[in-house]
């Protein structure tokens, strides 16, 4: 398809915003939109039109008062409940104070802790690049035998509301482990799940998932990248 044709761009933008553009066509359109600001502006304009259509065509419905109380309760910063038991026990706090003082003295006497070990040198690297894109979306590095995984966003695709890119390790025998959600910007350490497998024997893969379905044990969404680790 020739995505340069203005009429087609307009039609696809409208159908993307409406939600009738589906499947592979939708994903292809999303990839195009990520690096075509004119296209994403068209989509934004359609989202405006349709949201205002919804706003003015939906009926005004009286909301039951209990709804507001329920919301208020859910946005309380911390429930200020009086908890009986240990928390309110003077003896407990006295005891804790005593122990803490002793600990403080002990720590003063002991030699200070060694400066914490700097991050291990990266041993493997994977460039996550979308098919057809020239620049990398993320740089994934692994250190300490694969126990430390860092993801740095370079030019990640813009994700629609409610969807995220998830990093996976996929072994040749089909075993799959979710490593985490890739950051939209900056660098992030992804917690490595405890596993009995060699991280470096796996392929690195990225899928698009609905954030409401996380955490997940197997990918459900489309795979947008898959590649091996490169040794440094």
């Amino acid at each position, binding site marked *: 398809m020739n995505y340069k044709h203005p009429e087609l761009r307009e039609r696809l933008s409208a159908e993307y915003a*409406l939600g009738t553009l589906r499947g592979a066509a939708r994903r292809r359109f999303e990839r195009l939109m990520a690096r075509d600001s004119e296209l994403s502006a068209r989509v934004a304009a*359609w989202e405006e039109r349709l949201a205002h259509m919804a706003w003015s065509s939906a009926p005004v419905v009286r909301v039951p008062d209990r709804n507001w109380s329920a*919301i208020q309760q859910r946005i309380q910063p911390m429930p200020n409940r009086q908890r009986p038991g240990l928390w309110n026990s003077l003896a407990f706090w006295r005891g804790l104070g005593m122990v803490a003082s002793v600990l403080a003295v002990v720590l003063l006497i002991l030699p200070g802790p060694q400066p914490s070990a700097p991050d291990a040198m990266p041993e493997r690297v994977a460039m996550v690049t979308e098919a057809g894109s020239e620049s990398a979306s993320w740089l994934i590095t692994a250190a300490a035998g694969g126990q430390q995984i860092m993801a740095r966003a370079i030019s990640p695709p813009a994700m629609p509301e409610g969807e995220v890119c998830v990093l996976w390790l996929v072994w040749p025998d089909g075993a799959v482990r979710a490593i985490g959600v890739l950051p939209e910007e900056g660098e992030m350490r992804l917690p490595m799940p405890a596993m009995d497998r060699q991280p470096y024997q796996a392929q690195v893969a990225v899928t698009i998932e609905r954030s409401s379905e996380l955490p997940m044990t197997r990918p459900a969404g489309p795979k947008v990248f898959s590649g091996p680790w490169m040794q440094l």
Partner: protein
Amino acid sequence: MPRSGAPTRRIPLLSSFLYRVSAPKPDTPVTDPNPDLEKLLSACALGDRDAFQRLYLATSPKLFGIAVRILGSEAQAEECLQDAYVKIWQRAGDYRPHLASPVTWLVTIVRNGALDRLRRNRRQLELADPAHLEFLMDEHATAPGPAGEESDAVLLRECLKQLREDQRRCIEIAYFEGLSHGEVAERTGNALGTVKTWIRRGLQELRRCLDASV
């Protein structure tokens, strides 16, 4: 909304009278005639609960209407609305005025939440009684907008009226129920090609009408 600590405390009768006058009447829940939603959202981002309440009063009847329209059930829509406002409170700081108008941002949060819920439940949920949906849609066609409605909403209403009934209906079903062309065709009992054409022409028409009037 109790006005605790109001200066009129010494005259309890007067204060309760004032409260009754200023409290939202059951049938007209929109209190603030023309609130600046953008300002309210940025106040929410700073943790201003009063602003959040004003935002809620100004927008919840409409957003509830949208959730009911999508889910076809008031009980489901209530839960959906609660989730949506908790999200709005938590993510008000993510709102970017240059990317979307406040209404679009709010509607998108509610619609996404409601469609997620709909898809999750679709297997167990008996599909909403179509007669109920028809009733809701007929209601909006004639009901006047809330007081203080901005002129672009009136304009949009006019543009929607100009669409052919079948075009408008297909667009609304696709939007509110998250359905594909094929599913809309199945739902309305029309041929797939016909539905595609109606939706395409309807969208073109909508845009032409809105752009011409700006």
